């Protein structure tokens, strides 16, 4: 077991003081002693408790709701339904599924409200009750009677494409683009037909990937509280600034009348850098009841009422020459978005390869399932698995070692894509060396005697590390004590420790001389929010800019006296002109597959990453290890299945979801190749999502090498392995 990652510094990286040192989190003592306050740990005087009534039908029109028995129950203080809580939840359905903004709110036709009629999935909120305690609220929910007109439903995204499929929206089942057009999204380069004519071999394959729930450990909860016309919302959000603006916009009140607080959050993993319907519902309940309200989700509420990764079906056609070079890649993707478009529904992968002719067509389809949304590498693991599995097959078919095939065909720094720096080849070569690829990989897949078969696989990654706008405010007092205000919420990667390290290094003071204030929109400036693996890059850059400004002020004016403060505010908005800024990585895994029982065991897992300069190797390594763990769940276990007859979700908790446990996740041998491309704070790039992205692909390739059969559907369950071998 390694205590620290292996670190290889390229020539661009010069040593620094705090940056690059393994640093325990500055809030770790709070996290291990129970003092860290998560949303559900907030208790306010006179606080009521809320529960949500959810639709039992996948598609139904609500004829009427009878609240009389619930209202008569002693202790019930407020009930809201679509009739009296008629607010648009803007971020819940967005034309085109792009990042939500004020203009998009105006044009989005397919609006999602806090409560919708018709209801479009099992679990959609129908009513919410606030009562003196959670038991009364639960009882009241059971006393509400709803008269439904049950409508036909569709669960499968390919079924939803058929002309006679039940329609979820008047415009049809293809989710509208940002211009409200009902058409698939097509992107192309060159002419794939010409590419296929030039090919010596053409491979065609269908892959599918499943819905996986974020399944963060903290079930969603909200505490909302009005003081006059000012609303305070405690809520688990990865982005207090965006959540804050979204709530104000949806409720039609000025931004300054809303305060959002999130100090600790029990896991993010995607699509939480905005508000949620629960924020609106709780705020309205609190207003109706005239008292603070805490809404608590059960684990089942969280599974069926939130969101997960969009399931996909992907049809690939690939042309290749005898020498292993690619001539064409064509992809048709049908994504299952559930009934509302929260995100784009796309899949990554084609951009990983140098190929003259490519074409990708995306059908983001509405269905009567729980809404799909961003989840750690939104487009990536479910995109990487099919294309890297298929390319692995191509490598065997043209009799090339998969590592050589990747080195030949992977995206290069060249006229087509200019990277700010490029280390993908180094990641792959270093990984192959550390993993002892030549020793572990079998040239003949499936070879070997006995029921337990070993195999090795490789997969790689090239993932956005863009720069952009975020803010920081830094002050210093007469004693030379610094206070850093950043709008991060520290959802797990350790953002506020990272910000502390960056500020301390730039100011040349110990960590303890900088106090970090975070997680509260009344005290913190705008932050980009903890999504897209960008907090270190964007908010970190703002911290550097503010620190430089403050140093200059101190040099000019000296430290303040008495109770005075010097203050620096920064909102840099840097750009990478004409280049692509990516982080890179390669994973190698050796597995053992039990061909009689279908089980998969991990023998060795090597991850080599270039994420620029590493700010804190301790937490960065944890991100990679944890990302691999999540990827294992997606590769082998997780699948939110539905009963086809009733449209009811069958996986509504951890037991059947089978997220990885202590017994499922191997220790990962992590190496960082460090570089400074001159962008971001001291060259820092993305880490958070990068550990997960290639994990399903690498496991798929190792299983193929072990058993000689390709599993073309995620998750690669025991049943699928045994089915392939039968």
């Amino acid at each position, binding site marked *: 077991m390694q205590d620290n990652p292996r670190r290889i510094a390229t020539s661009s990286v010069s040593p620094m003081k705090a940056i690059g040192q393994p640093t325990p989190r500055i809030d770790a003592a709070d996290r291990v002693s129970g003092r860290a306050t998560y949303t559900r740990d907030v208790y306010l005087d006179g606080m009521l408790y809320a529960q949500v009534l959810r639709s039992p039908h996948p598609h139904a029109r609500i004829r009427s709701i009878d609240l009389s028995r619930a209202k008569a129950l002693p202790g019930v203080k407020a009930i809201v339904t679509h009739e009296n809580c008629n607010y648009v939840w803007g971020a819940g359905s967005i034309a085109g599924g792009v990042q939500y903004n004020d203009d998009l709110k105006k044009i989005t036709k397919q609006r999602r409200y806090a409560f919708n009629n018709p209801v479009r999935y099992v679990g959609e909120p129908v009513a919410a009750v606030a009562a003196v305690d959670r038991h009364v609220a639960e009882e009241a929910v059971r006393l509400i009677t709803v008269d439904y007109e049950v409508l036909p439903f569709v669960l499968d995204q390919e079924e939803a494409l058929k002309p006679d499929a039940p329609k979820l929206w008047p415009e049809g089942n293809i989710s509208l683009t940002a211009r409200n057009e009902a058409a698939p999204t097509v992107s192309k380069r060159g002419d794939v037909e010409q590419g296929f004519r030039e090919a010596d071999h053409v491979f065609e394959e269908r892959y599918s990937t499943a819905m996986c729930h974020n399944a963060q450990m903290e079930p969603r909860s909200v505490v909302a509280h009005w003081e006059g016309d000012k609303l305070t919302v405690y809520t688990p959000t990865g982005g207090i600034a965006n959540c804050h603006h979204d709530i104000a916009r949806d409720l039609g009140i000025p931004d300054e009348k809303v305060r959002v607080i999130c100090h600790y959050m029990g896991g993010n993993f995607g699509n939480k850098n905005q508000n949620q319907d629960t924020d609106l519902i709780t705020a309205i309940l609190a207003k109706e009841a005239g008292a603070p309200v805490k809404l608590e989700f059960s684990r089942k509420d969280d599974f069926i009422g939130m969101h997960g990764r969009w399931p996909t079906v992907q049809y690939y056609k690939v042309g290749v020459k005898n020498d292993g070079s690619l001539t064409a890649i064509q992809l048709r993707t049908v994504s299952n978005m559930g009934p509302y478009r929260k995100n784009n529904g796309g899949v990554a992968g084609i951009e990983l390869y140098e190929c003259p002719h490519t074409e990708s067509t995306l059908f983001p389809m509405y269905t009567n399932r729980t809404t799909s949304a961003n989840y750690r590498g939104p487009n990536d693991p479910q995109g990487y698995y099919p294309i890297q599995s298929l390319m692995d097959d191509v490598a065997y078919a043209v009799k090339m070692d998969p590592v050589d095939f990747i080195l030949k065909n992977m995206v290069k720094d060249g006229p087509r894509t200019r990277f700010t720096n490029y280390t993908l080849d180094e990641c792959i070569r270093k990984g192959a060396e550390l993993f002892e690829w030549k020793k572990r990989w079998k040239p003949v897949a499936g070879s070997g005697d006995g029921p337990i078969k070993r195999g090795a696989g490789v997969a790689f990654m090239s993932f956005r590390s863009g720069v952009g706008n975020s803010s920081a405010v830094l002050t210093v007092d007469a004693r030379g004590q610094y206070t850093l205000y950043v709008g991060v919420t520290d959802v*797990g990667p350790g953002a506020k420790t990272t910000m502390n390290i960056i500020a301390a290094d730039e100011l040349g003071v110990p960590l303890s001389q900088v106090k970090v204030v975070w997680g509260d929109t009344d005290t913190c400036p705008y932050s980009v929010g903890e999504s897209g693996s960008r907090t270190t890059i964007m908010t970190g850059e703002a911290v550097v800019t503010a620190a430089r400004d403050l140093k200059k002020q101190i040099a000019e004016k000296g430290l303040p006296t008495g109770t005075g403060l010097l203050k620096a505010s920064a909102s840099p908005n840097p750009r990478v002109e004409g280049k692509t800024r990516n982080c890179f990585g390669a994973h190698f895994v050796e597995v053992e597959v039990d061909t009689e029982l279908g089980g998969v065991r991990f023998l060795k897992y090597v991850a080599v990453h270039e994420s620029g300069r590493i700010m804190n190797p301790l937490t960065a390594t944890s991100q990679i290890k944890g990302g691999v763990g999540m990827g294992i769940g997606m590769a082998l276990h997780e699948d939110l299945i539905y009963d086809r007859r009733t449209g009811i979700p069958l996986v509504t908790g951890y037991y059947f979801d089978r997220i990885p446990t202590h017994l499922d*996740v191997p220790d990962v041998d992590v190496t960082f190749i460090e570089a400074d491309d001159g962008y971001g704070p001291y060259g820092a790039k993305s880490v958070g999502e990068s550990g997960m992205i290639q994990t399903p692909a690498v496991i798929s390739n190792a299983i193929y090498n072990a058993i000689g059969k390709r599993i073309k559907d995620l998750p690669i369950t025991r049943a699928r392995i045994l089915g392939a071998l039968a």
Partner: protein
Amino acid sequence: MSTDPEKPTEQESDVTRREFLGTAGAALVVAAAVPGVAVEGQTARPAGTPSRPRTQIRLTVNGAQRRLEVDDHWTLAEMLRDHLRLTGTKLGCERGECGACTVILDGKTVYSCSYLAVWADGKSVTTVEGLAKNGALDPLQQAFVVHDAPQCGFCTSGQLMSAKALLSANPAPTVAEVHAALAGNLCRCSNYSRIAEAVVAAGAAGATRRTSGGGQ
């Protein structure tokens, strides 16, 4: 911030409170030493709450003896969190699947979401708040800090309590033994190898202390 374990939210009826204080006098002295927790009314229910069967129980919470009147249907987790404001115990699923609510009851781990408060009568419960002594973190907590065992931190209390119970039974476990003993504690950040590292290190450090005659 207004989220500290504040004074009890509401008054009980006078009769209940008098009876409660009359019987809880001895416990009051001990419990008053616990900062931020006032004994009277700590299991108070808000005005207007329907009357439900209640039972008086005695138990030890993090070393302090308590005499409490609890609703019969309260889980141990609900009593600890909502009524004693020991919110370090987390609720991740409330159906015995995730382990976030793990506490130590008479030396054994239980899921406090799946254990009734009344069943704890006469027993001794330790929560994550009970691990630190005199403001100093337990060596196990310290190892969690150094080895970056918490990511989001939501499962951490449960992992710590399972690990504490493991170390009591097996003071210097191997990585495999830690993973096996903590298999009932999920971590969606999948930080399992860090957690195991921390527990193994705490065990090894404890073994060194014992050998060198140093106590803790």
